[in-house]
């Protein structure tokens, strides 16, 4: 994600990818067992001085991995991270240790990120000692200063983490990160382990520190209200890739990526009279070991595009896609029972299947209807494999064949979705109205 500003970014990641392997031990690795988890898969990110970039997504989407790769806790598999023009991935160990003090990390759970055996002063003092920020004689003094900076009294220095409340611990975590005088703080869910009233205090503190020291933040969180409150720009991440980037206002306004829409609509509103529409995504995110082809979101997307050649309505097509998704989840030998909602209902006829998935008895495109009828006959005979292949060929969406690129397309900011690509939608108005229709 990039901005048009002329100034050079503080931190810049290009084509960054981080992979894990599930292989366990040398033997597994030698035998080539284990799968590759593509936790971060080709991400471009720029962070400018004094700005806050929000990074949002569900758990398992690779937000934390990206953050940890940026601080150098994880080795990237591809791509580069540069800090003020220096490529961190090419740095020597010694140089890297020096640079490390410029990018610091604030952890989600302040209790587990503080050593229970060390006092507050020892934890913060360690950071001071490692990089020799201040001479040993002045260390205590500096610890007190730092505590004051994060809004704690100096007498907290002698306490142990378990004697502090959650909010106080998070303040210690922030003080420790600030001890080495960094320019960039990567805050990984800094408030999600805290109570509401305490959250507000930490968020205010982060804002104050930014004003005071001109810090840049990468704010990793699943809570969009926090992002909206603090961030200047937002990147939405799904399965290791950015699906939408832009200024906070752009991303939070319509139109946006269907995934962003779902994330936004899912936030419970603290207003009993709120009556907005809610997009509930089907199922859980696919495993990052097995990322769906094409648009990674197409398996859960409520707005999958119909094939360009067909005349199918969006609703019809989505109903067929739901059937296809279920088919791909079902075991081949599970039979028809896997497709019908109730296990004990074995009236195997195509009409029942159509009803179960809200597919109209007659599709508006006759060719498509023939193909569907054919496939459903196969399903009624229990031949799920045949159904699967027939549906796949007749109802192939561009979302599963072509990977969308993160470009503005017809939208005002970069969105990786075919709906904003003229090649797939024909005209831009359709895309615009398509996404707006939910805001009724």
């Amino acid at each position, binding site marked *: 994600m990039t901005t048009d500003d002329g100034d050079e970014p503080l931190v810049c990641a290009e084509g960054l990818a981080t992979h894990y392997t599930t292989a366990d*031990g*040398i033997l597994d690795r030698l035998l080539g067992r284990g799968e590759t988890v593509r*936790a971060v898969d080709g991400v471009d990110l720029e962070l400018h001085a004094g700005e806050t970039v929000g990074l949002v997504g569900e*758990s*398992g989407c690779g*937000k*934390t*991995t990206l953050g*940890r790769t940026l*601080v*150098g*806790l994880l080795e990237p598999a591809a791509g580069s991270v540069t800090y003020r023009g220096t490529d961190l991935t090419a740095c020597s160990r010694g140089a890297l*240790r020096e640079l*490390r*003090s410029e990018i*610091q*990390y604030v*952890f*989600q*759970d302040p*209790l*587990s*990120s*503080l*050593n*229970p*055996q*060390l*006092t507050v002063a020892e934890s913060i003092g*360690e*950071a001071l000692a*490692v*990089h020799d920020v201040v001479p040993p004689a002045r260390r205590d003094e500096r610890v007190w200063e730092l505590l004051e900076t994060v809004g704690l*009294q*100096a*007498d907290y220095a*002698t*306490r*142990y983490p*378990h*004697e*502090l409340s959650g909010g106080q611990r998070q303040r210690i*975590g922030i003080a*420790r990160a600030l001890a*080495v005088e960094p320019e960039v703080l990567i805050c*990984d*869910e800094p408030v999600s382990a805290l109570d509401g009233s305490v959250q507000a205090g930490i968020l205010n503190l982060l804002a104050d520190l930014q004003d005071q020291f001109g810090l840049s933040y990468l704010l990793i969180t699943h809570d969009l209200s926090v992002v909206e409150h603090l961030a200047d720009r937002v990147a939405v991440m799904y399965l290791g890739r950015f699906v939408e980037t832009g200024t906070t206002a752009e991303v939070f306004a319509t139109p946006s990526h269907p995934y962003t829409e779902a994330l936004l609509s899912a936030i419970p*509103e*603290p*207003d009993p*009279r*709120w*009556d*907005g*529409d809610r997009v509930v995504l089907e199922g859980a995110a696919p495993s990052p070991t097995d990322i769906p082809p094409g648009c990674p979101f197409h398996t859960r997307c409520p707005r999958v595009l119909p094939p360009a050649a067909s005349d199918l309505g969006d609703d019809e097509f989505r109903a067929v896609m739901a059937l296809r998704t279920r088919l791909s989840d079902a075991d081949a030998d599970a039979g028809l029972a896997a497709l019908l909602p109730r296990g004990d209902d074995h009236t195997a006829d195509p009409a029942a299947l159509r009803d179960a998935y809200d597919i109209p008895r007659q599709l508006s495109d006759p060719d498509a209807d023939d193909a569907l009828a054919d496939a459903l006959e196969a399903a009624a005979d229990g031949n799920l494999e045949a159904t699967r292949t027939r549906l796949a060929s007749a109802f192939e969406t561009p979302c599963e064949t072509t990977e969308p690129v993160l470009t503005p397309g017809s939208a005002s900011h970069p969105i990786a979705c075919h709906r904003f690509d003229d090649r797939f939608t024909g005209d831009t108005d359709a895309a615009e109205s398509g996404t707006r229709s939910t*805001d009724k």
Partner: protein
Amino acid sequence: MSDRQPTTDRGRIRIVGFDDAAEQKRDSDASSDTADAAGTTADPSIASRGATGIDPTTASTSASAFAQPGRRLENAWRRFRRNRSAMAGLAVIIVMAVLAVFARPITVSTAEVTITLQPFSLAPDDPTAMFVGPPNAPPSLAHPFGTDWAGRDQFSRVLVGGRYTLSIGLVAVALALCVGVQLGAIAGYFGGWIDEAIMRVVDVLYAFPFLVLAIAIVPILEPVPILGSGYWTVVVALAVTGWVGYARLIRGEVLSVREREYVTAARALGVPDRTIIRRHVVPNAIAPVVVQATLNVGTVVLTAAALGFLGLGLEPGSAEWGAMLAQGRSSLLRGDWHVTVFPGLAIFLFVLAINLVGDGINDALEPDRDGRDDRRRMR
């Protein structure tokens, strides 16, 4: 009410005024806080009283946070003290140790001078002096534990024998801990081929029964000159066989501690690996090893006794409890029960006490081991 119409807008309700009031209160609090702080620094005795949580009238949150004393060890000691059987075990060990130390005078002699380090002598006779009484005499007032085949005073021998047995147990375990904890921590923290190499050695050593391995090692070690006779050979043999258990145990613990966020946090700060292991990993992984080591003191004492019984290790005739048992075999057949019962009882009592203490340490350390970090998921 008109303003409670259903809406699709978010962020419709807003509360104002609360923050202003809170701000005002904070300002007034801040001034009183600085006054408090000044008072605290002016009078350190009050501060320390608050810190130990003795002062019950201080109801503020800061004092209550101090109510739980900070150090984990202090907490553990408090819990340990409340455990009666463990305290009884500890008392038995202390009494045995004191008896062993004060049984005979300890002297350090060089060519010219002899310095007496410990002049007391609780044991009535020299344990090596023969025929201080009739051979194989049953317990009597003069010889409360009777005498052995050479007429040596059993009571003196049991007291002095404690020196060997207790110190073999403690020294061997301490040596094994030094080796095992370091190797295990390194293996667990770094992983990879270092881990594979160390753990395969551990696996090989584990393939032998403990006692058999010790029996095999003693003859190998005996010709080594510095080890000298008996005592050090036994200690080294027991340490060599003992470290594998600690290494394996601490490796497992380190594997989980290594994944804790405070270790990651230290790495993010650029703390060198050596310091991370020393400050962050080992202190948080050591608890189960300490428990295991304590319990192992008993096992090691038993093994030392078994080695002595088999005639390995200490030179024959020395007042080691196991060796005494071995020599008593023949007397036992003749019906002279006292020759074996008293050293046996001493071993039994010591091992029992060690086990009680080990359980006590286990209970004292256990509550601090939490599963909170298990919540970590890959995000």
